[in-house]
């Protein structure tokens, strides 16, 4: 009972702040609220991702990237030592490797201890059918399909000598939200053992998350560029790539205020 009450309480609390979110996002923790900054570092294996650098996939194919973007939404946390889910204010954030200002963003939360972060890679089905959106969901961000409505959840573009396309292009626009074609993935990451995130009012804690672009090519469905240099529609190829990118995230550390 107490747990449920607590959840509802936090829910109401965040509703209020979600309203003024746009203004508070850049300024960090507000009065009477703690804050978490999520920091995304895009990687190619164990190296920081550099556009234009040539990397090897696990199948030995070369790949160099010029676009790497993905949506983070529906963020929540697990309160340490409990089963409570702390739901963050509504967020649809586009991490775009070409724009370092998108690498991190701030969420206002109550001052509790957190042991795990959960989020959706992609945009939930509701937002895919709810008409014209703004902010990071603005179709001008080039992450929206106009002929078959829906968001591109994640985008990776580059080139490889194994691609038979014009200019050796490698083009993966991964989208699809309907049952059977859903490429959003629920990501659950525990904070490192003994490193709970201890939130304090008026202060901002940091979570550092790595996103390894090379994971798109390996994992449950090893992806051979020679065979599939392009994926720009919902369907089985997209869902198999999603099965891979579901594993691209890891926590590299947390920093308490």
């Amino acid at each position, binding site marked *: 009972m107490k747990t449920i*009450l607590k959840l*509802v*309480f936090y829910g*109401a*609390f965040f*509703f*209020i702040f979600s*309203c*003024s979110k746009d203004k508070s996002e850049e300024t960090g923790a507000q009065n009477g609220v703690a804050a978490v900054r999520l920091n995304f570092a895009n990687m190619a294996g164990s190296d920081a991702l550099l556009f234009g650098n040539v990397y090897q996939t696990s199948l030995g194919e070369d790949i160099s990237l010029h676009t790497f973007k993905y949506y983070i939404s529906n963020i929540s946390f697990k309160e340490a030592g409990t089963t409570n889910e702390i739901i963050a204010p509504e967020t649809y954030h586009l991490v775009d490797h070409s724009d370092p200002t998108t690498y991190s963003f701030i969420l206002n939360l109550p001052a509790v201890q957190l042991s795990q972060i959960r989020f959706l890679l992609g945009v939930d089905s509701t937002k*895919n*059918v*709810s*008409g*014209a*959106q*703004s902010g990071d969901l*603005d*179709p*001008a961000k080039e992450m*929206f399909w*106009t*002929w*078959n*409505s*829906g968001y591109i959840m994640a985008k990776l573009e580059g080139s490889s000598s194994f691609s038979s396309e014009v200019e050796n292009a490698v083009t993966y626009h991964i989208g699809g939200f309907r049952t059977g*074609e859903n490429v959003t993935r629920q990501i659950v990451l525990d904070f490192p053992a003994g490193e709970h995130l201890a939130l304090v009012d008026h202060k901002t804690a940091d979570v550092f998350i790595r996103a390894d672009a090379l994971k798109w090519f390996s994992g449950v469905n090893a992806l051979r560029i020679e065979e599939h240099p392009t994926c720009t*529609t*919902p*369907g089985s190829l997209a869902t198999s790539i999603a099965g891979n990118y579901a594993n691209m995230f890891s926590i590299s550390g947390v920093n308490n205020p």
Partner: protein
Amino acid sequence: MKRIVIISFIVFIATAALLLEACRKNDSLAPGASVLKFEIPPGFPDPTYKFDNNTPTQQGFELGRKLFYDGKLSMDGNFPCASCHQQFAAFSTYDHDFSHGYKDQFSTRNAPGLFNLAWQKEFMWDGGINNLEVQALAPLTAHNEMAEDIGDVINKLKADNNYRALFKAAFGEDNINSQKMLKALAQFMVMLVSADSKYDRVKRGAAHFSADEENGYAVFRAKCAGCHTEPLFTDFSYRNTGLTLHPTLKDAGRMKITNHAEDSMKFKVPSLRNVALSFPYMHDGRFYSFDQVLRHYSSGIVKNPGLDPLLTNMIALSPADKTNIKAFLKTLTDSAFVKDKRFAQPQ
């Protein structure tokens, strides 16, 4: 203790609700904007469009109308929405199988009339677009139609003092973005209600069918209304009507959206309101007359895999049936709608 917790909760939730309500009001309606009432015609179902998220106002509608008729939304300035959606043709392209677009290119499907969109759940012949508000993005960005980039259109609008004032009047802020442009266009399009044809007047008891029209209505109800359901004259389903595959376009229709083989060559059932104005017919405009369409359904259907079960035996129509159906279909023309000055190009 427990009581205090519960009471503090109720207070909290009430506060949250109030604040939420307050910010919603700030978001959608500009101060001074006058709400437009959306009238549901007698006998029509409740609309599908979610008005709560985009309440039409006089100012939003007028902005949407200006955008609809403005070539600025296209790459070279020559192709406003209205170039393919002409009011005198119930907002279809008059007398064209395909429509003209950027750099002398043609569209690949017949431009449908625009009316009663508030009741439509999905858009385009294949239903690929799931909300009226995002429909305009497809023609706007298609290389053979308006050929523009969303960001470029927004920049053009931002550079125009007149538009800045109109966006402010409609939405309360003068920062222009694609969401506001699309919502304004949706406000204009959702108000395009066509429900004043002779058929509607007969239904209201304000007119009478001629004998031919009356007989045609009876045949229509018996043989056509299975798909072209009243009062919208479509059931919004996707059906394979036994047309041959277009030799060059090879348009597989709905299958392109669902990836399901059983949806091959299915297209959305179009409304028959204003059908006398929206020729040529079918998704690719292959038939130019009622006679050709009726000949198809009575004797021209190709039994391709996936043919709609209602058409397995074609539709038996005598010469008299055809004459009468044609007379009835002409009663679906809404002359007031196609001349309604509210929907015409702003002066």
